[in-house]
């Protein structure tokens, strides 16, 4: 029974004669080139395409477009290439397409979860709220033991794949003069106008083909041509404009500030063979002007059994017929409140489909419609309502009753295999609303329409409430001209257009005592009863009703349901629609893949991975790396068989015994230059700088204005007007920003300029008693002798023949140098230093050994010993604060009452009673071994290591009044019991500091 619902002659449709094979739920079918998955399934007589979210009711396709709530499918294209929740109405068929329905087990036709349908009361409005907000204990128990397992297994939409997505997703910014969103009649007319102006135009439409409703318009003609011929000519004309970018398969899904509009382009999903390039492209468009031409969406009618497969939107049936050559049934009943469904009836009848009846909810359908129907031999039932429908997996009959006043007569049952409904049309004001425009309720037309423009945009066509084709074209053209600054009206002659009257919202009149389920939100399974119940239980605003019932909160965001829900709530409340309100239209208009949002920003390209010039050497020599911000730093250099612990121990011991070589290139560096350089440094650092001689270095401490330590580093004076400032690795950009801030806004008269030199210099630290011996053979032009170049000095010369700044500094407590060479030379100079170092059994060490050795010396690390609330005094660094200085950033704050109060936490050392115990960093410290609960901790451990130099564990900590507690025993409570620690000074190795002066 291949394609038994395809009409014989498809020459007027958009499908070709080329057959395509595809598989849906494991069954092989045939479709045509030009089909969507939905049209191909319908051609094979398949309406059942999904199960509903909550009740697992069988659902057929409702629509033919992006608004589809029911026919959600997963398309699989190989490992990692599974996309769930796609609308079958938008999935373009290709040869070999494999798709499956969702939310069903074990099969679509027999779904065990449908038991939820029988337990309907259980899931009524407010289910989630009642469950979560119920009496605490009962609620928790009910939730975790009863509801959650059921809901998790039964509810939800498609599953995701767990494999990485192998596809490529591209992102581009782009700019244009005019962006036209929507490729129907209004959009085409706008593009013609804007294209002629010569302005740069982007014209996008979500579908594969431009044309919107013109693609299935078989009756109307424009300018004397059949609508479809006119469309073809218009598109041909547009393609001649080099200034118009035509973007099919591109959904404008989000409208943001200042005409920033996000488009999602499906590049490859329609192709049998995925290309090497992008599967999707996210376009971030900045448009000078926007034309919104997004059309309107047909509204379902709300009657019992309106969700049975085979019940669908009327115009969708016409789209399937005229565009895809597919009959949605062989015997249909039309239920309508709007003229447009008469066109559907006429087209179907002409194609040989039995139209058993047109049930019109209106008492007096327009005479013109009645004449058309009569001429085609069709029966019209006015003042009609639907009492219920029949059929299990497909509708088989419908009960139609006449309504007189408020009385619903007994129904007449009409056999059918499809019910085509139309409640009228809802303008798609989503993009307008996202642009922050306020929609306005038009009581006479029963529509929300765009109000004043907040951004440079205008709506045209059905999205603005214009439904006559001639109006749509004129309005579109005018919008295109206005957006492109052109003028010159164009007339359009249209004939054969359909009627545009009618429409209803809310539920149709019911038989007394009717028990059938009348659905409002198909995707989230919200019934008319649920909305009425929500109102009855106290919900007053549509925002409450929405969250209480979840109406409009599914992936379709209520495109087909919001107005019906609103009307039902308003009716129940006895209020007008605007009084009840309209929910927000949020981005995205239709779901967008995570891939599109991620773009290329994943894996290795997620963040910059900053590597030093010496990185490659460390890699070749087996280093383990750690992330420090976005830098990769050599962490330790394990030798064969060594774990981290052993490697770090060896590195520390050997550095102190001979020398260690360390890549310090990540340190931030700023060149501060100008006649007022010293004056500026006096302001930005706590220390005095005026008298620091060129060639000397000083440890600098930086505070924020609140008096807290934010950075530190060694600062060298290169000359009267030049400082070489170093910062912490992570602090470099922050410090430069902080300095620029004060320089530009508080001290703009200072003649000083800042330049980042972080990446100009590779920095090789050589630390240990043999440091001088190791570097000496490589250095020219510098006297390295103890007296000529004392601790904390800097000299310019050459190392390995390249210009270098050599600092004599130490972060280990040993004799040490830091060689700065231009970065490209870094690796080569490192290799030379390494070769010299080998002669002394020197080691390369990483950041872990660096941390251990500095902790042995009690040197702080900003961000480890500090947390943004620590003052210089807390750290015992008052010696670094220039007492005589009149002002520096943070100085005034240091004498605020809270900063000098007793009991501030101060930096101390801790020694565990058991030397083998290494404390956990971050662990709290208490006075008692079993501190009662709700007592405050005295402080916390900031750094903790096993010290190779001491052969035992050491720790640094911030402890209340720590300096007064020397020798006291405190406790570190841990799950296995409190650990006793003795408070000691923070310097564990060479407290007198002799070694740095060797």
């Amino acid at each position: 029974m291949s394609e038994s619902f395809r009409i014989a002659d498809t020459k007027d449709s958009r499908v070709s004669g080329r057959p395509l094979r595809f598989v849906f739920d494991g069954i092989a079918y045939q479709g045509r080139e030009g089909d969507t998955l939905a049209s191909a399934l319908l051609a094979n007589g398949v309406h059942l395409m999904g199960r509903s979210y909550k009740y697992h009711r069988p659902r057929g396709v409702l629509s033919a477009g992006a608004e589809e709530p029911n026919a959600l499918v997963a398309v699989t294209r190989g490992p990692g290439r599974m996309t769930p929740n796609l609308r079958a109405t938008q999935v373009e068929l290709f040869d070999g397409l494999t798709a499956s329905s969702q939310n069903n087990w074990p099969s679509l036709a027999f779904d065990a979860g449908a038991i939820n349908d029988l337990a309907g009361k259980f899931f009524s409005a407010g289910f989630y709220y009642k469950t979560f907000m119920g009496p605490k204990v009962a609620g928790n128990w009910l939730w975790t033991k009863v509801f959650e397992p059921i809901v998790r297994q039964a509810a939800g939409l498609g599953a995701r794949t767990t494999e990485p997505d192998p596809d490529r997703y591209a992102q581009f910014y782009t700019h244009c003069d005019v962006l036209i969103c929507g490729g129907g009649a209004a959009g085409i007319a706008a593009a013609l106008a804007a294209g002629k102006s010569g302005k740069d135009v982007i014209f996008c439409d979500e579908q594969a083909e431009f044309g919107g409703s013109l693609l299935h318009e078989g009756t109307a003609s424009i300018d004397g041509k059949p609508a479809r011929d006119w469309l073809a000519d218009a598109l041909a004309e547009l393609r001649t404009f080099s200034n118009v970018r035509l973007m099919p398969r591109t959904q404008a899904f989000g409208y943001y500030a200042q005409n920033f509009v996000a488009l999602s382009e499906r590049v490859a999903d329609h192709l049998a063979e995925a290309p090497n390039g992008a599967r999707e492209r996210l376009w971030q468009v900045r448009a000078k002007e926007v034309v919104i031409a997004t059309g309107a969406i047909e509204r379902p009618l709300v009657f019992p059994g309106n969700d049975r497969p085979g019940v669908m939107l009327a115009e969708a049936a016409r789209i399937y017929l005229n565009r895809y050559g597919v009959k949605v049934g062989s015997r249909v009943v039309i239920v309508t409140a709007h003229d447009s469904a008469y066109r559907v009836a006429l087209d179907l009848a002409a194609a040989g489909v039995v139209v058993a009846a047109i049930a019109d909810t209106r008492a007096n359908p327009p005479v013109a419609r009645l004449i058309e129907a009569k001429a085609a031999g069709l029966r019209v039932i006015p003042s009609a309502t639907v009492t219920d429908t029949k059929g299990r997996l497909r509708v088989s009959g419908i009960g139609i009753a006449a309504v007189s006043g408020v009385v619903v007569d007994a129904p007449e049952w009409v056999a059918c295999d499809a019910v085509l409904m139309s409640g009228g049309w809802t303008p798609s004001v989503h993009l307008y609303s996202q642009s922050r425009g306020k929609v306005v309720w038009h009581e006479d037309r029963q529509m929300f329409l765009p109000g004043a423009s907040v951004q440079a945009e205008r709506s045209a066509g059905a999205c603005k409430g214009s439904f006559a084709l001639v109006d749509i074209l004129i309005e579109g053209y005018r919008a295109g001209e206005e957006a492109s600054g052109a003028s010159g009206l164009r007339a359009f002659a249209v004939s054969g257009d359909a009627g545009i009257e009618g429409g209803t919202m809310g539920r149709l009149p019911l038989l007394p005592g009717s028990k059938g389920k009348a659905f409002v939100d198909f995707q989230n399974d919200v019934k008319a009863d649920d909305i009425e119940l929500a109102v009855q239980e106290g919900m007053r605003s549509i925002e409450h009703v929405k969250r209480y019932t979840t109406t409009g909160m599914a992936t379709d965001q209520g495109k087909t349901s919001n107005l019906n829900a609103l009307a039902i709530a308003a009716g129940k409340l006895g209020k007008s629609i605007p009084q009840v309100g309209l929910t927000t239209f949020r981005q995205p208009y239709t779901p967008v893949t995570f891939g599109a949002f991620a773009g290329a920003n994943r894996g290795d390209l997620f963040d910059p991975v900053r590597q030093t010039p010496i990185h490659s050497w460390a890699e070749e020599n087996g280093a383990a790396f750690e992330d420090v911000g976005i830098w990769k730093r050599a962490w330790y250099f394990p030798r064969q068989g060594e774990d981290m612990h052993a490697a770090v121990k060896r590195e520390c011991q050997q550095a102190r015994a001979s020398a260690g070589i360390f890549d310090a290139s990540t340190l931030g560096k700023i060149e501060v230059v100008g006649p007022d350089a010293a004056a500026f440094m006096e302001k930005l650092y706590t220390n005095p700088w005026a008298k620091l001689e060129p060639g000397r270095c000083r440890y600098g401490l930086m505070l924020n204005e609140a008096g807290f330590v934010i950075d530190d580093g060694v600062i060298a004076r290169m000359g009267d007007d030049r400082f070489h400032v170093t910062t912490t690795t992570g602090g470099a950009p922050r410090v430069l920003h902080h300095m620029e801030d004060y320089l530009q806004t508080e001290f703009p008269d200072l003649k000083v300029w800042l330049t980042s030199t972080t990446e100009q210099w590779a920095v090789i630290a050589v630390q240990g008693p043999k440091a001088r011996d190791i570097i000496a053979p490589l250095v020219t032009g510098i006297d390295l002798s103890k007296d000529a170049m004392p601790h904390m000095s800097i000299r310019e010369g050459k190392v390995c023949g390249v210009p270098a700044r050599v600092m004599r500094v130490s972060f280990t407590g040993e004799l040490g140098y830091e060689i700065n060479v231009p970065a490209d030379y870094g690796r080569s100079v490192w290799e030379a230093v390494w070769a010299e170092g080998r002669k002394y059994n020197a080691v390369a060490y990483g950041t872990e050994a660096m941390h251990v050795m500095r902790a042995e010396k009690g040197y702080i690390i900003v961000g480890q010993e500090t947390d943004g609330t620590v003052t210089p005094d807390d750290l015992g660094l008052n010696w670094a604060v220039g007492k005589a200085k009149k002002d520096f950033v943070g100085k005034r704050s240091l004498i605020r009452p809270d900063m000098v109060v007793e009991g501030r936490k101060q930096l101390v050392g801790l020694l565990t009673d058991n030397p083998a115990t290494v404390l956990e960093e971050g662990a709290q410290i208490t006075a008692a071994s079993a501190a009662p609960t709700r007592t405050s901790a005295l402080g916390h451990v900031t750094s903790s290591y096993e010290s190779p130099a001491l052969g035992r564990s050491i720790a640094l900590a911030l402890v209340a009044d720590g300096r007064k507690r020397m020798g006291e025993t405190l406790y570190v409570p841990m799950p296995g019991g409190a650990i006793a620690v003795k408070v000691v000074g923070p310097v564990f190795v060479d407290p007198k500091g002799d070694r740095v002066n060797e």
Partner: protein
Amino acid sequence: MLLIRCPYCEMERPELEFRYGGEAHVARPLDPMATSDDEWADYLYFRSNPRGLHAERWRHINGCGRFFNAIRDTVSDKIVVTYKAGEARPATTGEIA
């Protein structure tokens, strides 16, 4: 993403190039040590946080690097005017857009 006119580049540039810098025209006292604890705390911690027009600092950090000031409507998120650091706050109507 907003477009922000940099008064130094004299050009509208994408928000991504800018960094926000808090309320504008909060001048650091010329002699901080002469301020009272309350005055200093006010300078450090207290800001106007208006509903409506707000003078604030921005830096074109990934552009020309300069700090400048902007009047932004905190209700509509629209930047009404931008001006160079050191210039007086331009006259703007105080209405909420």
